[in-house]
């Protein structure tokens, strides 16, 4: 029996549901069991965490169940096998962190938090990793606006595409503006710039 098969059997006992597509084995477990499941796989021989990633199934055709999945990509160097452990979560749910099992999961979980807004409980340093701290929203969610829309930041700053292009041509000085609250470094009595025009 291969390592993957034995881990799948152990995870089945935890209530895991295995699936296979093109020789890639994945097991779906409960959110509360994830640390246990990952620890089980690690002690069985999956000694490397390759990746933690999120997927937003909002627009996936005929998708049933919870909106997001978090997928843990595990690899065993000794047995040369790979398996995936998945959990399904809804918007606003939080997931126990696995940084206690592998330190390497730190950046991976931060990236999932940054891109999907899924929070990880007891994570040592859960901050946005790639996008600016004040960016409003989570970019890889399927309902994040794309195309000709202003990029909005939490404190009211925004980047308006039309103004951005105008700034590039040199016709207009405005690259970005401020709306509502004042950004750090700007005095409170500075004149309020115009809001982006509705398209």
């Amino acid at each position: 029996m291969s390592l993957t098969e034995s881990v799948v059997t152990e995870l089945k006992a935890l209530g895991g549901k295995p699936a296979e597509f093109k020789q890639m084995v994945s097991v779906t477990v409960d959110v509360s069991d994830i640390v246990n499941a990952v620890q089980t796989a690690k002690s069985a021989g999956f000694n490397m965490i390759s990746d933690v990633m999120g997927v937003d199934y909002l627009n996936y055709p005929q998708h049933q169940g919870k909106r997001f999945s978090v997928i843990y990509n595990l690899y065993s160097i000794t047995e040369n096998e790979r398996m995936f452990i998945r959990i399904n979560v809804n918007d606003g749910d939080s997931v126990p962190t696995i940084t206690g099992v592998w330190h390497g999961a730190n950046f991976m979980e931060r990236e999932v938090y940054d891109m999907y807004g899924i929070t990880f409980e007891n994570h040592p340093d859960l901050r946005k990793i790639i996008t600016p701290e004040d960016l409003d929203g989570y970019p890889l969610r399927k309902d994040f606006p794309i195309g000709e829309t202003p990029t909005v930041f939490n404190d009211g700053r925004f980047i308006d595409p039309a103004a951005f292009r105008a700034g590039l041509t040199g016709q207009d000085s405005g690259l970005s503006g401020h709306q509502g609250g004042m950004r750090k470094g700007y005095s409170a009595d500075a004149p309020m710039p115009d809001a982006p025009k509705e398209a």
Partner: protein
Amino acid sequence: MTIPKPSPLTQPGVTVSDIETASEFETKLMRLNVGPQHPSTHGVLRVVVDLDGETVKRLVPQIGYLHTGFEKTMEHRTYQQCVTYSNRMDYLHGFGHDLAYVLSAEKLLDAQVPVRAQQVRVILTELNRIASHLVFFGTGILDMGALTLFFYTMREREQILDLFEMVCGVRMNYGYFRVGGLSKDIPEGFVEAARKFISGFPKMIDQYATMFAKNDIFVGRTTGVGVLTGEQALDYGLTGPSLRASDVSLDFRKAQPYSGYENYDFDVPTSDKGDVNARFMVRMEEMAESLKIVEQALDALEPGPVKDPDRRISLPPRQELETSMEAVIFHFKLATEGFHPPRGEVYVPTESARGELGYYLVSDGGSMPYRVKARVPSLINLQSLEPACIDGVFADMVANIASLDPVMGDVDK
């Protein structure tokens, strides 16, 4: 007027350890910001360090200054168009990213890639690995204060980029691979030019060895610095040459061969030292191994098709469009909407110049990927900077950053 307190050293019966623990000698941690615009941070990496004197006590990399949103963009492009974006992530090893992406897409489609296309892919990826390592040596040793090697490595890198220019017309951002093969066959004269390069290159490796590998200053500067044990490296998810320098022999070209790597005879260099010097030396040996692979692939190269003959994946040849109605239909379908892989999720690990690189593709049955997740090695390798630098001196941090070889485009995606 206040009388100054006598120095603790003048008191009778005071030992050195008493002085070290005396409250007057306690220092406060100083928080220092390095980068993002700093020549030794290889782009726009910002590192916040807490220093006790000159000793690093805590270190946090701050990234994201080069975030381009490639993953989101690729969700709105057809599978074939995505090749344009993948190589822009790691601009020093673009062919490696292209290869990782097309392998995943081909696994979704069950595409049959012709042997010649696979061989050309291997040749270009390995040449690109050498070019990437050359930049690593040049800039890495530049960070430690030796300027000369940079000019030598750039000289050889230019020769490799000339070869790439022959093949696909550009020196960076290639976009030459296609799902199902290559965009076109390699030009006449490429094989001879490549052979000319590989016959001259071993001499250059010897030259580099005399310039830095056997250089006392370099050896003294790097030996025993930033030691990562194998367990530590695995715990922090380190992959690639840096992991092999910590005596873990993991190379996906050997472990899970793709694109015909099982047909070539090459070794996986490892080192048991785990320090900065080992990370440089492993890459040095890797260049020679890559050269061996390129040589064997050039020998095995035989004429043949370079695209999957399946009309649902590859465009039909131009001359067929004038005689065959079916060819026109396939051409129209491919050019307007592209192919529709079946639903499912795939992942193919490859060995980039920096470590494990793979694209996790989620297909919803449409002509564009539903989700593209690049498992980029630089981002995850960067976590090992903390264990490598802790309790070392601040000046060694620069050597450690250089030895982990992060490419910021690969980190921020």
